């Protein structure tokens, strides 16, 4: 009886914990501040979450609009019309701007008017059977150059093709971790569900 009570209590505790604490179960494979040269505007982390592979981009910037523009520019370059996944890239770019708009609108209501930073978290999630991008409005704490997510509010979940998501993970890894394609692929192993 005591054992059952203990298990129930543990489950209750886990359910009430903030999602960020749950995310602490994430195993970070690689992390890097972006851009590589200061002043940094956030952090990119490659995460193993259970069997899923997650490329998490945390943005904390006073010029988020320009950071978003820079991401959109990179997307446009990486996904020309003749490349498979181009449509997903377009959809991603559109959602990214909407997510920024939502973050900006929310920021107008916040209490600390002196803080001009806007925060956005993007996750490219590659699971065994699912591939999607999620946009969050996170609450962050920062130690040194590393961020930890205290809370996150889901803004949008965008399902994409596996080809786009897998390849974009590689693109982001190469760009943010300053590594070549071979090293990026090595970091991403094993690919959940294979490719």
């Amino acid at each position, binding site marked *: 009886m005591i054992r059952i009570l203990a298990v129930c209590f543990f489950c209750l505790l886990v359910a009430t914990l903030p999602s960020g604490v749950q995310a602490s179960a994430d195993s970070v494979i690689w992390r890097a501040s972006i851009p590589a040269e200061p002043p940094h505007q956030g952090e990119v982390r490659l995460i193993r979450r259970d069997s899923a592979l997650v490329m998490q981009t945390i943005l904390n910037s006073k010029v988020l609009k320009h950071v978003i523009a820079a991401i959109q520019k990179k997307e446009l370059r990486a996904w020309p019309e003749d490349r498979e996944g181009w449509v997903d890239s377009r959809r991603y770019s559109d959602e990214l701007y909407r997510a920024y708009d939502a973050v900006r609108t929310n920021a107008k209501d916040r209490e600390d008017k002196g803080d*001009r930073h806007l925060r956005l978290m993007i996750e490219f999630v590659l699971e065994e059977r699912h591939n999607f991008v999620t946009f969050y409005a996170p609450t962050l704490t920062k130690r040194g150059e590393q961020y930890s997510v205290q809370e996150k509010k889901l803004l949008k979940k965008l399902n994409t093709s596996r080809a786009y998501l897998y390849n974009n993970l590689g693109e982001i890894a190469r760009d943010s971790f300053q590594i070549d394609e071979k090293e990026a692929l090595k970091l991403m192993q094993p690919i959940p569900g294979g490719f």
Partner: protein
Amino acid sequence: MTESPQKSSKTIEILLLWLTGKGRKWSLFGVLAATLFFAYFALQVPIESSNVSMVSHTRELQGNYDSFRKIFGNDEVLLLAITHPDLLEPESLQTIKQITQELTGIEGVTRVLSLTNAEQLVAGDFGIELVPLIPEQGAGKTYQNSITKSLEQNPVLEQLLISQDLKTSIVIIDLTGNIDQQGRGLAAIEKLLSSDYSDKNWHLTGIPLQKLTVSRLIQRDQQVVIPFSTLVLGSLLLLVFRRFSGLLLPLAVMAISLCWTVGIYTLCGLSLNTITALLPPVIMVLSVSTTVHLYNGWLQLAGKPGNPKPLIVEEFRELFLPCLFTAITTALGLVSLTVSSIPAVKLFGAFSALGVMLAFSVNMLMVPALLSYMPLPKTHRRYDTGRLSAVLQTTARLTVNHPRLVLTLALLLALAGLSGLTHINNNTDLIRFVKPTEKIFKDTMFIERAVGGVNSLEFMLTRRDRSTLTRLEDLTRIDKLQDAINDLHKVAGSYSLLSVIKQLNRAETNQEQLSLPDNNESLLYLFDLLETSPNQKQLRKLVSPEFTTLRINVRIKAIGSADTASLVTRIEQLAKRELGNDYELRPTGDFYQVVVDSNRLVSNVVQSFCLSLSMVLMAIYVLFRSFKLLAMALIPNLVPLAWTGGLMGYLHIDLSTGTAMIAAVVIGLTVDSTIHYLARFQREYQGDSKEAVTITTTATGRALSISALVLFLGFSVGGLSSFLPTIYFSLLTGVTMLGALVCDLLILPASLILFGTKEGSTSG
């Protein structure tokens, strides 16, 4: 005469007996040993590679400049102008691109900015984009039109990088503050341009190159002026004395005095600069003067019977005090320059005074000892006759027969000189220090004409409460101030962070016009953008990291320090009007320091001249103990200065670092002749002043004429210098010496005849 002079006369006699007797070998050996020691260091005298000693270092000025350099970095740049009739053709642009790339790779070069690598901020599909100022590829009329349109949209870059006629492109080369690296960089740049681009029409200028040129010219001057001085003085001595000993003895004293002074200068850890480069010729000239008097005294012994040693001792004992006093008065005149706030002038004053006293010591240690080895001259006929004697006799007759006429004419000329004094401008211009024939001068003037504004004034703007300058109110006021500054006639353009903010705003809002944002929120966003800019290094050249201090760079047209000083005052007034009392605008920069120094020059001149005059007067009084003689001695010394001042005014020669030294130096020199004249007059006066004047003018007048001629020619050699202030100083000092000779042989005797009859007997 009191006991004291008798006692000192006895001491001098004992010293001279020792120097011509037992002690002569020791004395000569001591001089030789000291000369070898000092010569070793004198030959290694370094040359200043910057203009640091040409500007004063007051705490406030230096403090401002130090904090400016700490915040914004080294402000020294080179400007390279490349001219081509079809500058905007692809071929010309390719040349500029190639030069830009090659310059970027040179050690000591921190950044190169030209038409081919300049960038502009534009509104792109994804917000602000940094794109090349001119399109990388293209040809023909359309391409040129796109370039001109791009330039029109970026007026600040246009002003900086291309001339109005679109035929001259400017390449701005930022250099490191490290002097050694800078030197190597400059040499490499010059080598690159003169070897690989010798067929191109290029001009190079900038403060670092000006400093290097000054350093090279000083070296060149040392190689030319010293041998030429020796040649001129040697020829003159040979002509006057017609004896080898009359040539070798003064030259030896000259060389030894020079070795000692420059050796001590080097041992003090000092480097030669534009002004102290004058030390060798000045010391050579001044040291020879005492030797001329001593050697002339020895020649006076010609044909006298008996043992030569006692005769030499007797003659030199008479000459010792006048020579000592003339050396002291000359040194005092020079020492007065140490009140100057400019280090180079201070050093020149101190070391030339030291040189004069050392020369006196060398003369007294060497000349009696060496002459005691020689037999007395048998005759000295050539020296006693000739045109000079005829001229002196005519002069004596004129003063004796028409003293009032002489004084009236002198007075009228002095008044004319005084009226000319009012035309003198107080103006220092570092680039105009070098001759117009020098390449650096031509290049600088070319670039001035092409883009206007090689010289820059720097301003540091802060709020008095030290808060950030990020509010729209701040920037709007600063913008108005910059507009007002740009409207000033002598301003070629100004540059500040506002230019970048306006570009950012135009790109952010996709407007046509360059303007500031219309609300604080947008402005703060632009500052956020600046903070995240990858080009922080360039941003730090415009604003401090905390955004509390803003740099305003004002490029000014080719004007001297006088006009610049009034321009700075005008800008400060505009700042008061546009910014109010909440802001502080501090002028600074290399060029501004020169301007401040120039303004101080007049008060410096007055101070050093008053000091020089009072010390010299004191020395004359100590020697003659008569206020009346003192007053009479003043006239022939002040009148030539009035003449020289008038000459400067009528010839439009500015009062600058070099010419400002003339009065203080000359008063110490001209008084020497007055002292010699008065000393002889007192000796000759037997109740008849006319007779005493006639004898003094014809006898002492000869030595005075030779001495003045030596000084005139000696100083005139400085006319071969590469620096205009040095040339003016040398020539005008030489001319003043001739003026002083005229005054000593005309005004002083006329005054003695009219007012000084009793003075001859009172203190002989």
